[in-house]
């Protein structure tokens, strides 16, 4: 499970995330919503260990990320918005590399081929990542996240640039991860996806948490029962848009 307490991230004088606290229990999917520049990506990058938080505590499976990075990150998988992959490794080598790093070669041997097949990458297995399209890279990025036994999954806009079949597979995998007891945090702009997929939503604006709870709870809090999520979201974030640092 994932626990974030008072997370603050400053870029020089600009505060991108301001005292964010939340918890994701095992078997739960949380949607991270907010307008551009709300601090969603920064929060995810802090939780995944890419950025050093200015203040706050991040616990992954009860292990403090700042105290024991290796152990904390061993239970975590992160899929960035722009797929970040080694261009000169083949698809299969990339998957193996991740499995070797996380010491989960047994998972790779058992499920590696199946993963590639599910994401329609089997015929690209021996090809270099450099030759893949953006959508294929995104699928490989998701497959890499699935090849180790992480129980905290972080996704930054995982469905952007992926074809409908790929979107379906990713959603199915997320549901299966939830059933396995994983804690999943997804940053997304797709409100209908958040509504269908997430158990709870976390809405950020200008680095501050505006709301945390289920979608019916959100609608009730704004007296907008029956309204679609888009209108509710717009009402909540009205005047809260900000430029990205």
């Amino acid at each position, binding site marked *: 499970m994932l626990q974030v307490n008072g997370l603050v991230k400053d870029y020089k004088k600009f505060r991108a995330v301001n005292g964010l606290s939340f918890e994701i229990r095992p078997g739960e999917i949380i949607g991270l919503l907010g307008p551009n520049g709300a601090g969603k990506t920064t929060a995810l990058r802090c939780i995944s*260990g890419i950025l*050093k938080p200015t203040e706050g505590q991040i616990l992954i499976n009860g292990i403090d990320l700042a105290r024991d990075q290796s152990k904390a990150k061993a239970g975590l998988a*992160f899929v*960035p918005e722009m797929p970040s992959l*080694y261009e000169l490794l083949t698809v299969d080598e990339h998957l193996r590399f991740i499995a070797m790093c996380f010491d989960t070669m047994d998972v790779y041997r058992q499920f590696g081929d199946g993963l590639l097949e599910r994401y329609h990458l089997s015929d690209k297995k021996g090809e270099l990542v450099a030759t893949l399209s953006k959508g294929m890279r995104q699928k490989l990025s998701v497959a890499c996240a699935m090849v180790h036994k992480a129980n905290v999954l972080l996704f930054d806009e995982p469905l952007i640039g992926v074809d409908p079949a790929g979107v379906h597979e990713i959603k199915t995998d997320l549901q299966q991860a939830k059933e396995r007891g994983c804690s999943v945090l997804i940053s997304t702009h797709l409100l209908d996806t958040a509504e269908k997929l997430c158990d709870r939503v976390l809405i950020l604006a200008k680095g501050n948490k505006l709301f945390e709870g289920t979608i019916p709870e959100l609608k009730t809090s704004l007296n907008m029962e029956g309204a679609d999520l888009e209108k509710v979201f717009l009402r909540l974030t009205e005047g809260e848009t900000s430029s990205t640092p």
Partner: protein
Amino acid sequence: MKTFKNSFLRSLKSGRRLIGLIFFFGYYGWISRSFWSGGSGSGKSNPFSELVPPNVPTDLLHSIAFGAFGVFSFLSFASIGSQLTLMFRSPDVDVLFPTPVPAKHLLIFKLIRDSLLTAVVPVILIFVFGSRSGATLMQNWQSGSTNPGAIYGAHRLSFLAWVLQSFFWTSIGYAVSLYLSRGTVQSDRWAKIWNRFTLVIGLLLLGYIVAKVYVQGPGSLAKAFRDPVLATILFPGYCSSQFVLAPITGAWNLAIPCLAFLIVGAGVALKVAFNNADWLYEVTAMNVQVMDQRRQAAKNQDMVSIAAQRAQSGKFKIRQGWIQRLEFKGKMALVWKELIIFSRSTQSMFVVFTVLFVGVGYLSTVIPAVSRSGRSTPVEIFQPMMFGFLAFVVCSAVATTGFIQMLKLGDVQKPLPFTPGQIVFFEVFAKTIPILASIVLGSLVSIAFRPSMWSSGLASILGAGSFAFLVCSLYCVLFLLFPEYEDPTQRGFRGIVMLLGITVFSLPSVFVVFLMYGVLKLPILAAVAPAALVNLGLAMIAASIGGKLYGSFNASD
């Protein structure tokens, strides 16, 4: 004309371009002066005059002329097919192509420009023959010649021949490029055939020369340049040499047809290029983006991006070697990944450097030092010193590419289950391994040639290996301090700081070696071993600083 005017005006606004412009006009001004006056500084005596032979045989002159023009011919021949893709940049395609300027006019403009630029290539040779000592050489030839003034005639014609030959090859290059770069199935097939043909000719040529020298001895190398087979294969080079030497040999009956061949050949190629000028815009537009990216990657010394671009255009073959089949656990996977990427991006460079290490390893066994007793023994310190220097050069190439990747791929590396310090250490370690392999190979060669020098070989492994690790660690720190690898200012600054850093960080180990080997007269291995420990210690400090910097590094900044 407008393009020419704009290029000229643009040159005045940038220091770098201005230097290029001054060099360009200076060079051709000097050539013209030499052509009409017959060489600079002639008649003045200088300290080299006594070293110059009074009468050089015509045979040797033939060899020199054909050697120079033949090599130029071969290099020009090998680069045919790529001219057109290198001709324009993206702004030309977006701004220049939509204007009503006919493609033929652009072709003429670029052809003249490229011919003149290609002729700049042999500048070193021309400097040799145009310098004061070169002039004295010619004066001495002339004094021993039965035909005074002929040498100066040849000197003048050599400039004309260079320009003419470069025009010849540029015209052919454009004509062939317009066929090979169309991007159609048929043109791709032609391009493939052409590339293989070039490779086969190159290998045959090299094989022929090596075989000839091997069979007839090193003295035959000079004769090889007068060989009828070589003269046939490198016919344009042969024509140029005959034309240039005509004032000395008097063989104008051969020189005039040779000159005609070059002019007619260039004319025919030009006609073919003009007939296909309609393809100019399409071929350029198709390739310009890739070429711009490749230029940028080359500027950044990012070999991975260059290899990735080749893969995207289907020009990259994946070989499954033994490294790919290996299996590691945990942090060693970073090394595995790095070695695979290295084998696909920087391997050719590695081969060249390994040859250098082996060469220096062999050389260190034959360079003698005469001791006070008059005994000739190899210099023990030579090999570790030279290997250290080479290791620095190789690290610069390997580390630049590798650390650019580390900066680019923070999003995939930083969430791995390792601390930033561990990631940096293993990245540095992985980059040192191929260099270490070259060092070991070079040392083994030296030991094989002179087993008594085993301690010097072992000292080279320890000294240069630890130094390579230190240099890679310092590169890592510098890349994290100045991570804007596309910014030319940071790139230049990083280079200066690196030189300063490596000077400061290598001083302790150099001092240890000086003290133990130079002052205390200890054996080389005993002197280098503690210096290697110092290097490793400093490298660990640098790597831990790198780890701290990497922890707070944000690739998105």
